[in-house]
């Protein structure tokens, strides 16, 4: 064990010596340092959430709020009632118009269906 420690210390010393002697002559590429820092920082940047994550998060957090729930239900109920009223009014006008036409067709031979 002691011998192993000695051997590894010798290797470290040799490696240090070798590294001190080593000189890199090749030029670094442009913006090398900035690129290195960018690579280092990249894994730590938070990933942007997907659309589905946003929707599920919204359903889980915003929709159950009482104020939102009350407003949402009131809005949809009002929209349903308004659509029903509008459609019913149109249908009533259509039916009454048809019956008026029918009354005239019954009485006017020149407008009777041939």
């Amino acid at each position, binding site marked *: 064990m002691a011998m192993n420690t000695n051997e590894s210390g010798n290797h470290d010393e040799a490696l240090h010596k070798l590294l001190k002697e080593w000189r890199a002559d090749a030029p670094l590429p442009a913006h090398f340092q900035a690129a290195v820092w960018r690579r280092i920082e990249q894994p730590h940047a938070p990933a942007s959430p997907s659309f589905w994550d946003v929707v599920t998060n919204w359903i889980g957090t915003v929709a159950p709020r009482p104020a939102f729930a009350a407003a949402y239900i009131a809005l949809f109920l009002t929209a349903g009632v308004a659509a*029903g009223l509008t459609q019913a*009014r149109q249908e009533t006008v259509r039916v009454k118009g048809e*019956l008026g036409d029918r009354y005239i067709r*019954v009485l006017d031979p020149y407008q009777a269906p041939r």
Partner: protein
Amino acid sequence: MKKGILILVLGLVLAAAGYGCVYFVCTSSARHLQCGSQPELAWLKDEFKLSDAEFKRISQLHAAYLPQCAEMCRQIEAQNQRLRMLLAATNQMTAGIDSAIAESARLRGECQRNMLSHFYEVSRTMPPEQGRRYLAWVRERTFASGAGMMRDNEKHHENDK
């Protein structure tokens, strides 16, 4: 999450229920009018706010007028048929065509007189204000507007433009 979905679904269900209930209630009068044996008379009662007594009297007038109207329809159809045959048989004006056209005009005049008499009688059975409204309405639909042969002529002239 479950609570949120439940609220969203509840909103949609309430919207559909609100739509259905309001539509059903608000169209019930129109549906009711269509259910009877003579929906056009039920419509007349509803449109001109007739009392039961007025409606009964108008129904009697209506029933009395219908056979006259059916007879006029029969005569008009027979006359039209005769005129079509005369027109198909020649390529010039003949005395037969001339008299057939005159007969068609006479029938039309008689039909209009009968119809107008019926309309006046019906209008007199209604409350005065409703009677005036009724007369204006039938006049618009029968005499003032392009109805029957007049309507056909208008269509013909539209094609010329």
